[in-house]
């Protein structure tokens, strides 16, 4: 497992001992997604369909942009009511690549403005919104 944070992008990678066909629904099925993130989910996995993930203190909210089972899914991500981390303000791209019997998961979260931290209000306010997600 690795992670890289560079400019406004977080890239996280994980190898999972299962094929992409098994892993993919964990990003699109409400009953499966909550096994690893969030407490309650409302998911409509088609372009424009709702992506809503209740994480206790905060709800991550956005829409599916691309749904290409079992290899790629892209959804937007944000917090309702937040001016600085609005729903759709950043995007999460998940690419599942088969490797033998395993899957390499590469998750890329773009639009985080991390390089702006401290220099623009939106930078660290945005960060605080994300922080509440991380803590929640």
């Amino acid at each position: 497992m690795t992670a890289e944070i560079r400019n406004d992008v977080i890239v996280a990678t994980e190898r999972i001992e299962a094929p992409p066909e098994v892993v993919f629904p964990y990003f699109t099925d409400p009953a499966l997604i909550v096994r690893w993130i969030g407490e309650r989910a409302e998911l409509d996995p088609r372009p424009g369909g709702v992506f809503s993930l209740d994480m206790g203190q905060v709800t991550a909210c956005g829409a599916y942009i691309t749904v290409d089972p079992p290899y790629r899914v892209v959804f937007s991500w944000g917090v309702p009511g937040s001016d600085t981390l609005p729903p759709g303000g950043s995007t999460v791209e998940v690419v599942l690549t088969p490797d033998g019997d395993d899957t390499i998961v590469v998750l890329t979260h773009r639009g985080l403005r991390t390089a702006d931290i401290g220099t623009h209000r939106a930078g660290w306010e945005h960060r605080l919104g994300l922080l509440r997600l991380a803590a929640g």
Partner: protein
Amino acid sequence: MAERKQPAPAAPDAVLRALADPHRRQILRLVQHAELPAGQIAASFALTQQAVSQHIGVLRQAGLLTERREGTRRLYALNHQALEPVRELLSEFWPDALSRLKKAVETAHPRPPKREP
């Protein structure tokens, strides 16, 4: 003391605790671009000056505020560097989540043990 006190780097926990309060976040917003005296910060809140002073104390202890004295006034500004541990913590959000995903998938779909040929 005329020189600016540079706070020592604080642990992420102290920074997170300091950031957990909406009044303290509001104080940081006020001073993120401009140095302000304590009185002016307090005037922005419907809180007692003592309560605001306590919030300023928590933020200073977390390293989020720098303090400079000018005559009898104390001026405060955001110490941007103190947010760095928060940045690092956030960079763990998705890797932690993917670790849980791996565990969830591999628990639900265990591989049969490999047999020696």
